[in-house]
């Protein structure tokens, strides 16, 4: 029986919330958060639109094959997922008594890993609560910390890393790129991408 799933899926106030109407959906949530951050940061949105226009042009829809040529797009997706990991908590079970960071961990105990804390650690990220896609545009791989620390873990890590990473990322890439390419978005009411309505004006393509 999983406590973690329950914590992830159901904020304690909404046990019987219908998953399909108001509950959390991870891939869809990721798409909404990415778009939400872009709408809240018009400069980033504009820069991203320019990148898509220069790589894809205005004749056709952005394609998954274009993604490797769009570093700024990748940085925006990474940065939004850093701030809003779709599955913030995940679990491991300790298989034998061992030492972790100098403390004894008994066999069989549940480990709750908080990706949200890990990816907002002020010791590792400058201005951890701000949306700054440029931090992923450096020469070195910014998803790895000093001494190869795993500082960017939206899909977990190790052997038990999420096996659906490819499936989820490909869906996120093709939907977000198309949404930014085709429409201008504006938030109406609400206090964030979660639950607020978005409206848009059509961009002339």
């Amino acid at each position, binding site marked *: 029986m999983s406590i973690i799933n329950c914590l992830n899926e159901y904020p304690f106030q909404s046990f019987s919330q219908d998953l399909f109407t108001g509950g959390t959906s991870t891939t869809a949530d990721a798409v909404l958060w990415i778009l939400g951050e872009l709408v809240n940061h018009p400069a980033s949105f504009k820069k991203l639109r320019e990148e898509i226009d220069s790589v894809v042009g205005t004749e056709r829809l952005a394609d998954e094959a274009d993604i490797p040529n769009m570093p700024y797009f990748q940085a925006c997706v990474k940065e939004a997922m850093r701030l809003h990991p779709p*599955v913030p908590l995940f679990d491991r079970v300790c298989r034998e008594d061992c030492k972790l960071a100098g403390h004894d961990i008994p066999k069989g105990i549940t480990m709750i890993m908080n990706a949200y804390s890990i990816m907002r650690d002020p010791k590792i990220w400058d201005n951890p609560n701000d949306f700054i896609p440029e931090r992923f545009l450096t020469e070195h791989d910014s998803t790895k910390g000093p001494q190869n620390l795993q500082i960017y873990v939206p899909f977990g890590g190790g052997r038990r890393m999420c096996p659906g990473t490819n499936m989820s990322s490909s869906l996120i890439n093709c939907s977000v790129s198309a949404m930014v390419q085709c429409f201008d978005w504006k938030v109406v009411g609400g206090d964030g991408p979660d639950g607020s309505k978005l409206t848009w004006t059509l961009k002339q393509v």
Partner: protein
Amino acid sequence: MAAMTAIQYVIALFVLWFITVFLQYIFKRPGKKPAGYCPPPSPPTLPLIGHLHLLTPVAYKGFHALNNKYGPLLYLRLATYPAVLVSSAPVATEIFKAQDVHFASRIKSPFEDNLLFGSSTSFFNAPYGDYWKFMKKICMTELLGSSQMKKLKNVRHEEVVRFLSKMLEIGQKNDVADLSAEVLTLANNATCRMIMSARCSGEDNQADQCRGLVSESFDLAAKLAVCNLFGPLKRIGTWYLRKKIAAVPKRYDELFENILVEHEEKAKRGGPHMENKDLMDILLEVYHDKNAEMRITRKQMKTFFLVIFLSSISLLH
């Protein structure tokens, strides 16, 4: 009146704290742990509920606050359920890399609890062992690997175009779009089609059935998970929910059996070089392959799709 209540509250907290300290003093069993035993630090507890009162409606934010206040490695007791909270990259890296093998198991998902589906049928939460290793390999090389995902590109593209035209339609009417709902539909339809060539919304009866069943099981699983926090309550909860607990797996079983049989018939008609295979077609090939490293059972296959379905709608890693 309000001041009175606040004072009573403080007194009640103090009494609880006092009782806790007292009981801990009485029941302390010295010498049980070897010398030098050093458990992770732990925030102050309350009797019975342990650290449950520290949970906030959005659990990860509450845990984040605990991390800021008490440190990155904490021992917690959620009522009767002990757990260790990890909130920093150095500790996480130790778990993912140096000690990965020590932490290569996962807790059971509520959907795979004995009550619902029987043990040893799952993959995503299977204990670290041969079955998990075999399925992981299949997932990485065939099912969920990048080459298979490239083959399914058109499916995603079609669903994105469908979504965009819906947005266009709404925009031409100058309406406001409920983007949360529309994106959810997009994600669910694309996922359903990649897995079993059926859409989740609209007229498709099977997908609709599946969807209803999923939301019912989430509800049931959440209730069971809460019962589980309170040891003895679990039995009462199980008893109370017994009818649903018996019905849900049976319905899943029938539904997935139907879908599997349809796919098997399609495979017979299409032969080995069938085009546009979905994930179910591919796993069925592994299932029928007599030379495979390991034979998977029909039940394992059904649970696999159930969990992949549940987890793409809400990734359970």
